């Protein structure tokens, strides 16, 4: 069974003369454990598509299933964890208690919460910072906390909306290495929205290239580079070839 099925999905915003067609006839099937990126120019609807999968928005046409359920049921069952471009940590909670937030909402008792939060913070390498407040952390560290929070309740699907978009290049590459390490260890399905071509190619098994007005998936590029991917991958000819392929796919539809 595929992790996410998107069939003929369209999304329009507004009414009457002000209506905007954000997405048109989107079809995409994502396998369990797969890492797929959505890439495209600003305004192509890639974040909108991610929000449709997460039931943060409702589609205008078509159907989506998440693990065979409706997106609404999947959200209610907490089948996915979401990471936004802004870390969206709650200022008044320490790092540890931010990671515990989903577990508190789920009514998991204190001891279990603490041990799971400790485990997640170890996974993202922030154990020493458990007692810190978000403002005491750098942007990259805040985003790692957000990833730990999204994984804390062990969802099978991870939805990531340009999570590294606000980070500098060096931090960004470190975070990509980090994310791949976590992905290989936890075997979650990941849908990753980005506007960086090297980022999409480095991380993903498949890259869905989107074009805008209206937003469509114009092409799906199979990356096919072996994992684990590391610094050598970034300098590999095959990596450059795929970057070129994605770039050309983006150009074609401008």
């Amino acid at each position: 069974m595929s992790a996410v099925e998107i069939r003929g999905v369209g999304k329009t915003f507004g009414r009457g003369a002000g209506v905007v067609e954000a997405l048109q006839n989107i079809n995409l099937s994502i396998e369990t454990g797969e890492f797929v990126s959505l890439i495209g120019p600003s305004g192509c609807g890639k974040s909108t598509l991610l929000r449709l999968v997460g039931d943060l928005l409702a589609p205008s046409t078509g159907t989506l299933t998440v693990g065979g359920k409706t997106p609404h049921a999947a959200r209610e069952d907490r089948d996915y964890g979401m990471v936004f471009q802004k870390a969206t940590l709650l200022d008044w909670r320490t790092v540890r208690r931010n990671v515990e937030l989903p577990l508190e909402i789920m009514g998991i008792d204190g001891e279990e919460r603490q041990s799971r939060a400790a485990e997640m913070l170890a996974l993202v390498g922030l154990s020493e910072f458990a007692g810190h407040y978000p403002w005491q952390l750098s942007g990259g560290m805040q985003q790692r906390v957000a990833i730990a929070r999204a994984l804390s309740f062990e969802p099978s699907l991870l939805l990531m909306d340009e999570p590294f978009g606000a980070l500098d290049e060096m931090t960004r590459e470190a975070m990509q290495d980090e994310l791949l390490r976590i992905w290989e260890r936890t075997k979650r399905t990941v849908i990753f929205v980005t506007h960086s071509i090297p980022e999409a190619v480095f991380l993903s098994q498949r890259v869905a290239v989107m074009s805008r007005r209206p937003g469509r998936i114009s092409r799906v590029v199979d990356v096919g580079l072996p994992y684990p991917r590391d610094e050598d991958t970034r300098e590999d000819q095959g990596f450059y070839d795929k970057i070129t392929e994605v770039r050309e796919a983006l150009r074609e539809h401008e």
Partner: protein
Amino acid sequence: MTSEPHDRDVLTAFEGDLPGTVTPSALRRRIKRYLPALVLAFLVLVAWEVLVRVFNVQEFILAKPSEIYATFLDEFDTVVEAGWTTLREAVLGLVLGTLFGVLAALATARWSGIREGVMPFAVAANSIPILALAPIANQWFGLTSLTAKAAVVAVIVFFPVMINTVRGLTEVDAGELELMRALAAPPRDVVTRVRLPNALPYFFSALKVAAALAVIGAIVAEYFGGRTASLGFYITQQAGAFKFAEAWSGIIVGSVLGIAIYAFVLGLERWAMPWHVSLRAADDR
């Protein structure tokens, strides 16, 4: 962990003193920070004393600080008793006004229908000179009752507390609400884990304003008549008799009350919000 250029900076920035700890260097910085204010206050007092002496200003126009101080010591028991009355009125009013302000804010923020009806009225009411109601309150509750003054104070405190708390409860980061939705959080969790903590800084900034207003409100309400042993009554009586050193002694007590309540609220704020931005810099500067 993979190295991140930022991490190191953050680490070293906090190696010295974490918030809440007072290291010798932090203490030195704190003294340094308040020194200019203390020096300025001292210079103003000296200049006042010197100018009154040099220009030979009559005592019934402007008393010298040294005279005020001597009178203050003489009148100490009287002004402290008066201050005690005023303090009770101010605190009672502050507590009642805050309580009702927060309750009203919770109801207002919860139901948008109420909000649309109530908020314009509350904002308008906030700019009404509520102190003008003091004579009426005096008639309602009796000239010498604490309740009359506390009621005026409570009404003064109510509006800023309510308006700010409503803002804090409703002006929540859209990303945080989206996060809670993604986590399928029930409405109760959104209130207790996001809206209420989000409202705390707004609430406390209103409470700090209200703390100062409470003492002003109580004293001015007493100007319209009240117990003999109350600051407003004492100050008007003494000033009316051209006993300015005595009047100033009353003003000193009023100032101390205002500062004390403000400091208490400040302490409460620090205790309730150990995370807050406004507290970060205080220990570091």
